[in-house]
């Protein structure tokens, strides 16, 4: 069942990349801004749930880290958007990211203990990989504003570190096996 959620999160971001290729034009800066803010918010929301529901301390700590780091990234993104006077514009990618995040939280709420931990961490691995792919293939290449582009380049290493961290957690929890 968890696979469905992974696929959901992944497909939202992949769709952005595919649409961009198909139309020969990627998302606009206001759309990119909305995607970045939504992507961070989705992980903050999952983190808040995991912080209260996770079974193991290391998963709780990871959840707190996600809340702190993604809040930090969104603070910088909001400041930049304000400075540039860009109004984030919802679009199919940001909407489906939001939907994917809500579905993930709904699913996680039905789980407990070690099952919860594994499902949360599995999704974190998939989610961070999907965001890195979207940054590389769609968001960074299509950003017109240099400061918006620079911000995404600057946050990318944090997503990579989170991905590695989540993979280490995943290994220590043992694979869920689907």
């Amino acid at each position, binding site marked *: 069942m968890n696979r469905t959620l992974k696929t959901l999160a992944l497909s939202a971001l992949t769709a952005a990349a595919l649409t961009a290729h198909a139309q020969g034009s990627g998302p606009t800066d206001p759309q990119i801004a909305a995607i970045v803010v939504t992507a961070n918010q989705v992980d903050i929301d999952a983190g808040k749930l995991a912080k209260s529901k996770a079974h193991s301390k290391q998963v709780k700590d990871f959840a707190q*880290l996600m809340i*702190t*780091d993604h809040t930090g*990234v969104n603070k910088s993104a909001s400041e930049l958007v304000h400075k540039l006077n860009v109004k984030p514009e919802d679009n199919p990618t940001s909407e489906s990211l939001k939907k994917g995040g809500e579905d993930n939280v709904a699913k996680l709420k039905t789980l407990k203990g070690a099952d919860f931990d594994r499902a949360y961490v599995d999704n974190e691995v998939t989610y961070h990989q999907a965001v890195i792919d979207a940054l590389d293939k769609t968001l960074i290449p299509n950003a017109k504003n240099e400061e918006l582009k620079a911000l995404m380049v*600057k*946050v990318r*290493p*944090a997503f990579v570190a989170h991905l590695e*961290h989540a993979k*280490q957690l995943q290994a220590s929890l043992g694979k869920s096996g689907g």
Partner: protein
Amino acid sequence: MGLSWASAASPPSHTITIEDMQFSPQTLTVKRGDRVVWVNKDLVPHTATAAKVFDSRSMPPKASWSYVARKPGRYNYICTLHPTMKGTLVVE
């Protein structure tokens, strides 16, 4: 007591930049008594922590933390928040 030559000059200071989820330089060698300053240029908090030797605790973005290296040795340290971040401080 008056000013000795040693107190007249402040100890040499070295900067380790934390950026892109890395300590740079990754390995820094200093003399005993030198000051080491970690500067966080990332958008997220970090720590510089060598268990039982030094611990900056959480440094918010744009913050820095300084440490006077008094004890010779080779100290591996990490960011406790992001365990993939590793550095080494060598005190001669």
